[in-house]
């Protein structure tokens, strides 16, 4: 197999997913919501099957099921019929309509079609909220789709009102386990939080006696409407800094103060997060969390001898990569390549900001990467471990090094939705997994087979 000639244009084994998928995930984190894709039915089917293979939970996405005729004459009628059916059949309280390549290319004006639909329905029934977001896959990845949907929800639903004590938390695309932990942190700080989106229950639900068409949980609609009256917003993700995000909308429209932080992975980024919460709540970090921080630091000391100087390649969504890199740098692992299929243009600066002063030499940072290119880079870098989602498995196998599975999608291991990445507790769990992966490899490779390491 040859090396790719540069520059080249095709993508081989992508390290990104498509834009409407991110939007569907975000909509799924709202109470009573049904994600709806305006396009060919294949999009809904493909994204459902993909999301389900990670979360092992129902994931309903409705579709306007456009055919050739609609592609020529426009999909308005199908969209209206589809919205009507979702309203009557599923009892949705919110329908999140995301566009697809098809409807963006033919130029359907979705906000206008929805306005007309509402007018036609007016007076007859109290319909669900309908939020629309433009998500053509040819401009951006699933993460752009995710953030666009969160922003659209805030833009289209949040209102001004009498000031409340609530704090808005926009965590980005993290796991259900992460969201549950964030809720716990807010509870312990006694901060009433509005987490958007919150798919902790909708994408990691309980076994049920009676099936519910739309799973319980999600950010309450009433809470979203009150987001304009909250006392502050905390928005996570360094590549979002200076961007036109949901948090920014809340500043511009309702003067809600915005705190922008990195995704709190590892000690320092989590410290920054807790500091903001201390500041907002006016109280010190609650004891259980301070204790967790102490134990984490203790484990950093204990684990250091096993992993110091190990070389790691990190890949996946940009903000996840930034957070993981910050964490790796602290524990003495050397990130040698930070790669993402995303292309925000802000990855390098964010990595530099979180690794400054900790690394002897900065890692190679690459946006717009696919796995073929990552594979090429590996040959010279000779890493000791990979950190990322399931799609990197073949690289790990080829090189005979461990893969620490994080993020999305994870479809070759069990429990991907329960992986904890954030905070002191998440760092502890990641540290244990990394140390043990290195130990296991050492043990397996040893001819002696030491039993005491």
């Amino acid at each position, binding site marked *: 197999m040859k090396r790719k000639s540069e520059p080249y244009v095709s993508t081989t084994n992508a390290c990104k997913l498509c834009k409407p998928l991110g939007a569907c995930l975000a909509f799924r984190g709202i109470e009573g919501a049904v994600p709806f894709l305006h396009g060919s039915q294949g999009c809904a089917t493909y994204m459902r099957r993909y999301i389900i293979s990670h979360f092992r939970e129902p994931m309903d996405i409705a579709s306007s099921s456009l055919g050739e005729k609609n592609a020529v004459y426009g999909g308005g009628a199908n969209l209206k019929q589809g919205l009507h059916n979702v309203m009557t059949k599923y009892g949705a309280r919110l329908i999140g309509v995301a566009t697809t390549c098809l409807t963006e290319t033919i130029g359907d004006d979705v906000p206008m079609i929805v306005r007309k639909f509402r007018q036609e329905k007016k007076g007859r029934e109290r319909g669900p909220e309908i939020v629309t977001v433009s998500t053509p896959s040819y401009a951006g990845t699933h993460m752009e789709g995710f953030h666009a949907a969160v922003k659209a929800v805030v833009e289209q639903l949040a209102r001004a009102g009498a000031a409340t004590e609530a704090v808005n938390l926009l965590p980005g695309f993290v796991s259900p386990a992460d969201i549950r932990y964030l809720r716990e942190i807010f509870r312990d700080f006694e901060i009433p939080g509005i987490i958007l989106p919150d798919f902790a229950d909708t994408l990691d639900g309980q076994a049920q*006696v009676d099936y519910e068409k739309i799973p319980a949980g999600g950010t309450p609609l009433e809470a979203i409407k009150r987001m304009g009256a909250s006392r502050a917003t905390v928005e996570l993700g360094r590549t979002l800094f200076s961007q036109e995000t949901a948090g920014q909308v809340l500043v511009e429209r309702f003067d809600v103060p915005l705190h922008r932080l990195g995704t709190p992975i590892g000690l320092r980024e989590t410290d920054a997060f807790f500091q903001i919460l201390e500041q907002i709540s006016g109280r010190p970090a609650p004891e259980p969390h301070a204790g967790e921080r102490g134990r984490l630091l203790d484990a950093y000391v204990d684990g250091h001898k096993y992993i110091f100087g190990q070389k790691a390649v990190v890949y996946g969504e940009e903000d996840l990569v930034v957070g993981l890199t910050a964490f790796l740098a602290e524990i003495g692992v050397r990130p040698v390549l930070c790669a993402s299929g995303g292309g925000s243009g802000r990855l390098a600066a964010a990595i530099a900001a979180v690794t400054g002063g900790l690394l002897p030499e900065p890692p190679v940072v690459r946006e717009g990467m696919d796995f073929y290119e990552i594979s090429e880079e590996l040959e010279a870098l000779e890493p000791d471990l990979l950190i990322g989602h399931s799609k990197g498995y073949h690289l790990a196998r080829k090189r005979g090094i461990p893969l620490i599975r994080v993020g999305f999608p994870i479809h070759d291991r069990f429990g991907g939705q329960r992986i904890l990445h954030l905070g002191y507790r998440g760092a502890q769990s990641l540290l244990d997994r990394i140390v043990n992966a290195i130990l296991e490899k050492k043990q397996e490779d040893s001819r002696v087979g030491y039993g005491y390491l």
Partner: protein
Amino acid sequence: MDTLNPEELSSPVIDINAEEVKQELLEKYPTKVARKRAKQIVVNAIDLEGVVPEIQSNVRTTPGLIGQRGCTYAGCKGVVLGPTRDIVNITHGPIGCGFYSWLTRRNQTKPKGPEDHNFMMYCFSTDMQEEQIVFGGEKKLKQAIQEAYDLFQPKAIGIFATCPVGLIGDDVHAVAREMKEKLGDCNVFGFSCEGYKGVSQSAGHHIANNGVFTHIVGLDDKVREGKYKINMLGEYNIGGDAFEIERLFEDCGITLISTFSGNSSYDNFANSHTADLNLIMCHRSINYVAEMMETKFGIPWIKVNFIGAEATAKSLRKIAAYFEDPELTEKVEEVIAREMPAVEKVREEVKARCRGKVAMLFVGGSRAHHYQELFREIGMETIAAGYEFAHRDDYEGRRVLPGLKVDADSRNIEELHVEPDPGRFRPRLSPDQIARLEQGDLKLSEYQGMMPEMKSGSLVIDDISQFETEKLIEIFRPDIIGAGIKEKYVIQKSGVPLKQLHSYDYSGPYAGFKGAINFYREIDRMVNSKVWKYLKAPWQEHPELAAKYVWE
């Protein structure tokens, strides 16, 4: 055991009025939707001539009803062309379509040696960006083809169009022709399989069939050695099914020229017209190739089914009957006799625990039919079944073909006009032979469909929606449902186990004799699981035990 006798077929299913159930399914729909669905939900009834009621199928899904179907691209690239290991498949479009069809069907392949190309692990895409949507993507596509060629030197490159491609007017066929000429030693062909074409993935199967037949079949006339040469059509090697079937062919001395397309290679396709018999597994996805090969090269086809031990034995006997060679018959009987004891041992053991339980199957274009046999073998009855993307002939049998109306959606898909090849058309059977075979049990070019093999009074539901599935569970509480991953967790949240019959729950094989054993065990594990009875915590189950003082 294998198929039901007329008396069994007409005996009522279970103590439930299927007409009433149908009404219950329809009553919540708006009138227009209810009227449409009423034609797609049918209570089976088999008359004395074996004729079944008409069912509407292969029609558009109603927007907003969450269903099972995929798109034309999925049928073309994912299903039919996906399993071939040495064709570089380039998705021309934005990234999602390629990503979601990257190894997700779990079709396996076994390269013949280290030199044999295997691109199964790769997902090639032009990753279209806004610039290409505005100014056209042909230039980028050409570059992508050149890059794929430079990297891998494949024998062939397939280009698959996604939704935007047709809309912006990129001509994948013109690009393919140009690049084929430029590269010289690489066959390049395009598929206009935009997702919005047709009503389901079925359109994609047809487009794929046309492409494979036009661009590959017949390119290599070398005749391979072997007395009984066959092709296996509509077998996609999910979970290693094809490996098990190949093992049986080999043991019987049957030479497999090509499979369409499980564990297949480009060269196999090119050479497939030299076979003497085509076997069809999945009638829906592949019958076009079989018919075109019969017209052009004179190869007859028969319907087979390797899902179910009895069905496997029957299919092997059909092949033997076709070749009319005692040597083959003897060999086939020897293999069946060798394999059956192990099957029967497990079957009896499992049957004792599964007998009388009921299943529902909503899957595919043939699986909803084929898997009924496996369930029947362990004493389980399928009380409701339906396909995701099949046509009337798959339900009612090919006898309905002459009367089928061609609607606008089907008219969009090209019907190739095929004529006998002047140099290579060779009838494999004499008229005498045909008459003799037809007098026996062997029906050429015949598929009777699913409904004539289901009991009267069972429910047949085409393109089922999530809403209807939930209703059916409420009414019947089946012991198991066979469908796909999209349905799996909805159904399991309702307390009913779901067997994934597209990807086999990452298990398998289920074909042939060894596959039947795997399936019996798997179903036994699922329908006899005790987990569901723990849904309620003890304090919910017996509230009276909750709190009590010792002195009470």
